């Protein structure tokens, strides 16, 4: 039971991460294509605020404050009762609201598969493709050292 709960939480977090990293345009497009419902009661926001970003001294030492980032959040309740949240970098309020609705729908066992297959999976695959392209472009700039043979024989 605890194992199942932990797995659910990890999957929900992964879905929220995918939504946070995706562009608002991509979310709206897939949302409309899938005909997902956008009726929900707004319990909070969407509102924009600041999160102070922390790093660690030397990379792994004590935390310190680096600077702030804009973050937009929203909390919604579905007619069926599920409450969903979104926190995402940037100031896209439409994206925050839809992502919060997606989080609420994801928690409804009857809707989870639909949200995963119609929304999360395509978003995640687009992100993975972009990431792989970036990795391969960076890899092409990797230095291959070779030794010069000096002198004869």
């Amino acid at each position: 039971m605890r194992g199942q709960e932990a797995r659910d939480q990890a999957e929900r977090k992964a879905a929220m991460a995918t939504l946070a990293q995706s562009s608002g345009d991509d979310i709206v497009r897939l949302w409309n294509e899938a005909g997902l419902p956008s009726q929900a009661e707004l319990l909070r926001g969407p509102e924009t605020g600041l999160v102070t970003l922390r790093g660690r001294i030397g990379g792994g030492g004590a935390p310190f404050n680096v600077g702030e980032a804009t973050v937009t959040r929203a909390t919604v309740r579905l007619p069926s009762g599920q409450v969903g949240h979104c926190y995402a970098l940037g100031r896209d309020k439409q994206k925050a609201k839809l992502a919060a609705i997606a989080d609420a729908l994801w928690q409804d066992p009857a809707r989870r598969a639909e949200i995963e297959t119609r929304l999360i999976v395509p978003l995640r695959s687009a992100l993975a493709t972009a990431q792989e392209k970036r990795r391969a472009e960076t890899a092409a700039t990797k230095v291959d050292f070779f030794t010069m043979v000096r002198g004869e024989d």
Partner: protein
Amino acid sequence: MYVAVKGGEAAIANAHSLLADRRRGDRSVPALRLDQIVEQLALGVDRVMSEGSLYDRELAALAIVQARGDMIEAIFLVRAYRTTLPRFGYSKPIDTGAMLVERRVSATYKDLPGGQLLGPTFDYTHRLLDPELAAGADVAEPLQRETEAQAMPRVSAILAREGLIEPDGEMPQDHVPGDITREPLEFPMARDIRLQALSRGDEGFLLALGYSTQRGYARNHPFVGEIRIGEVELELDVPELPFAAPLGTVRVTECQMVNQFKGSAKAPPQFTRGYGLVFGQSERKAMAMALCDRALRASELGEDIVAAAQDEEFVISHSDNVQATGFVEHLKLPHYVDFQAELDLVRRMRAEYEARENPTRVEEKREAAE
């Protein structure tokens, strides 16, 4: 008697509309769009984000246009904007070891896990102006190379295995990271607060100070252990979720400077470290920050404080270009009353001086006047 003086309202309004006109420039030239600035002046955007201390590309691009490309004015605009927003909290510390690396070089190890990745760098370019760019020539897609995703541990972790380098900077167990946006600066300050100030500090000022340490003013024998640029994930603990909320990714530049240290009464001979972490792709700034961080650790490491770069109060008090520009630029605002008072004072001092140096001439003058 105090006489209030008003005026200049019409002049100010007209000056601002003239500013708007000059900012737009020749109307036959298309207006800049923010996405053009974000995409094509990306490093300028990164500088405004880092010194404005606000990670938001579109806002930084807007600030650059509004400021007509004046970077310090743009940074000022961003700083002012961030005071209008509520604060949601402090993120979990980012893990630069898990970065999606876009550039990673080390000047201390040739062969290191993950390798040397040059990325989109100006290094090794010939610094020749490119007329093709002016003509708007098409740009080819970059090459790709298929590789297995490789772990890229920080170089500091590799050096640590030999025990010849100090560990990542630790603070006492119960230490809460200081925040200069909440509490006024106090000296001496802890290293975490110094790093926050340096991360938003003026690139030119920190660059000059870093350079001064290389030229012998508090020499500290630096090597670039590693520079890495790329995206890291950001998370925030919030009460409404049973796990940290994932916020998305931000691009940062990290510099690990490694410095030879011959030892002191406080510490044995070893490699010491300076650390730089900056928003966006801001390599020069991250390096300058790391040099200054190391120089400012002089008293912690038992070194003599002999140069400006080691003087914490001097460096941190003057590193913020918004504060600096505010105080310097206020000098051009009306000081008519102050100046009248000074003028009166200088006239009296001059009269006294002349009376002392040349009593007869003053006497003659007075007689002539009578």
